[in-house]
């Protein structure tokens, strides 16, 4: 609730800015800086970031070397960089799921320790305080936490849909998951058309996408991790309802290989016009508007992910955070921070959005840019920020993801019932927390 109010306050503050003023806000003057190296993942938004970096080099004369790495190799490169004592990178972009390991390990330089005058512009979205670390609470929060990172790109899932197909079938864009299920029943005509596609693949894919439905059904993985209560609640009746609904959507609305459907597959099905609706990251929008990659240019619209039965909305944030390794030379740290100051300006974020990226400033979303047809995803994105949450924000997050990623997939492909999958996951997660000395417990098992 507090996060929601903060976001509303930020939007209210920035919405007053005139469109022209936002456009005219200057880039930061960061002076002459030594060359820096950035570790960045090869992602759908990388071309946009590369363009913005080119603009930085052109404007400032400062040089930036980009080490572009496939997603699968990013974590290892980042780990090696900080564990060897002399980081080859001055700035690293790490997935929000990995940040806890780096924060807890003490590998990163708090941004204010590099330059006490550094402050995050108030317009920059905090994405659930993922850049702050409270070491005492072992939790990502601005409340008593140090600023360790800022979000380079905040991805949330959106519901993509084909208005032409929905109109033809006389269906309005779904606002609840039940409406998605009902719409898909009318739109699905396999193998020509799948009504709704979403990731079912084992691991991060199913865990991440299912959690949006889980949140919408009012369920959680852990009772109150921020308050130190790690009682496992994943085998609640609400979580089971969310899983049953998700499995129904996978089986009834998607292709028969739903159990291995990954992000690339979901994007491919939408881009080739074989899916009427899909649950996909915001960053994919630019590729749907690229005629070289898409058969549905101008045909896809977005809304925030639907609500659950109780009218609650849910979405999980999956952002990339920019961090500065503690063991980078001091001059390099300052140069990395100088680049960050420039990148966080409204002008740079506008340039990022125009190049196909997802800006991290609220004022860009309330500017004239939001009216451009190719950026028509912006209102849905902004709406999602009101309820989107960070999940698995504890040291055991990676292991919990492995557990959930396997058990949810096993339920989806019918290897075990949804009740058994959630009971098994709950037992494994409770053991994990118990082993690490957390205050934990579990709910009574679900009927299997």
């Amino acid at each position, binding site marked *: 609730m507090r996060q929601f109010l903060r976001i509303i306050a930020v939007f209210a503050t920035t919405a007053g800015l005139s469109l022209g003023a936002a456009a005219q806000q200057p880039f930061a003057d960061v002076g002459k800086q030594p060359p820096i190296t950035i570790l960045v993942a090869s992602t759908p938004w990388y071309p946009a970031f590369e363009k913005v970096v080119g603009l930085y080099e052109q404007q400032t004369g400062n040089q930036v070397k980009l080490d572009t790495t496939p997603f699968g190799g990013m974590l290892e490169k980042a780990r090696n960089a900080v564990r060897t004592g002399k980081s080859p990178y001055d700035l690293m972009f790490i997935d929000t799921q990995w940040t806890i390991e780096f924060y807890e390990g003490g590998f990163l330089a708090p941004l204010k320790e590099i330059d006490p005058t550094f402050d995050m512009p108030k317009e920059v979205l905090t994405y659930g305080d993922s850049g702050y670390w409270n070491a005492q609470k072992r939790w990502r929060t601005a409340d008593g936490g140090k600023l360790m990172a800022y979000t380079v790109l905040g991805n949330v899932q959106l519901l993509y849909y084909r208005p032409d197909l929905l109109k033809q079938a006389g269906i309005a864009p779904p606002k609840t998951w039940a409406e998605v299920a009902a719409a898909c029943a009318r739109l699905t005509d396999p193998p020509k058309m799948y009504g709704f596609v979403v990731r079912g693949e084992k691991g991060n894919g199913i865990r991440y996408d299912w959690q949006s439905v889980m949140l919408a059904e009012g369920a959680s993985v852990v009772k109150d991790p921020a308050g130190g209560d790690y009682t496992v609640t994943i085998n609640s009746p609400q979580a089971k309802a969310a899983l049953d609904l998700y499995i129904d959507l996978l089986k009834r609305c998607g292709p028969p*290989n739903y159990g291995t459907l990954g992000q690339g597959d979901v994007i491919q099905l939408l881009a080739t016009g*074989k899916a009427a609706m899909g649950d996909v990251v915001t960053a994919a929008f630019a590729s749907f508007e690229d005629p070289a990659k898409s058969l549905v240019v101008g045909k896809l619209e977005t809304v925030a992910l639907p609500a659950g039965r109780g009218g609650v909305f849910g979405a999980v944030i999956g952002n990339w955070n920019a961090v500065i390794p503690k063991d980078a030379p001091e001059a390099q740290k300052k140069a990395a921070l100088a680049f960050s100051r420039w990148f966080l300006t409204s002008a740079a974020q506008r340039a990022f959005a125009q190049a196909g990226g997802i800006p991290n400033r609220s004022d860009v979303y309330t500017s004239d840019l939001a009216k451009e047809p190719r950026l028509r995803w912006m209102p849905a994105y902004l709406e999602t920020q009101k309820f989107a949450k960070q999940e698995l924000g504890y040291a055991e997050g990676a292991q919990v993801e492995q557990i959930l990623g396997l058990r949810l997939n096993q339920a989806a492909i019918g290897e075990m019932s949804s009740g058994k999958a959630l009971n098994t996951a709950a037992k494994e997660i409770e053991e994990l927390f118990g082993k690490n000395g957390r205050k934990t417990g579990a709910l009574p098992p679900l009927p299997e």
Partner: protein
Amino acid sequence: MTRSSFVSRSFKHWSLLPGVLLLAALTLYPLANLVRMSVSTIEFAEGSEIWRFTPRANLAQLLADDVLRPALVNTLVFVVVSVAAEMIIGLALAIAVAGLVRGKQWVRTAMILPILVPPVAIGSMWKLMYNYDFGIFNQTLTALGLAPVNWLGSTSLALTSVIVVDIWHWVPFVFLILFAAVEGLPTDLLEAARVDGATRWQVVWRIMIPLLRPAIIVAFLFRTILAFKVFDEVYLLTSGGPGTATELVNLHLYKVFFEQNQLGYGALLSLAVIAAIVAFLVTARHVSVAVRAQ
């Protein structure tokens, strides 16, 4: 013994020292460190490593690991089926191509191609071909009026699909070893058998294969070791799914070590894999000696 003769005699031993030291540095030290890690829990705080001695906890985790059991079974099935198929197809191809009068070099060159393709490219290429909606296999089946097949998404078919890729990749390796061996067989012996009225099958079964045994054993050993180590293709094709249908030990090891950052338990799993391969090699050596003795 004079000093000079002692120096000249011992020189050959001393000259090996740099190599021995290098070997120790590159193999023994990492192995010793792996053993040390396998009995520890390693965490990081304040930018430094913290090691705790937890052999029992690591062993208990190994015994209670729910994913390890299907991974072991899958690995065993993968190794046995893929290596057996590769040996049979590779041997048949080697004998068939050796019998060609013309075009042997072309066939040999073409056969090398799959080995030259990086496993990452192979995984991506086959994933596209296996794609349910857009893959060439299902496009062909649909064009023929048949139902598309869920190659990688079906729990009963996924491992077979992965094995097919491995067979495609590594048959040429077996072929090349055995082809060279077939080409080196004494032609007079084969000719004599034919003159004596042996059929083609009898020549192959009773003369060629017994003579090829050493080469077959070498190819078999190499392939088995490599099959135990398979990772890239499976990671790209299925990542071990759906469920645990294609979960292999190396894939599980990767997830434990790199994705979950459990360095101690990951090291213990590594040692278990190394022990399994060593046990296999020792067994294979005994079998090989017994076969030669026959």
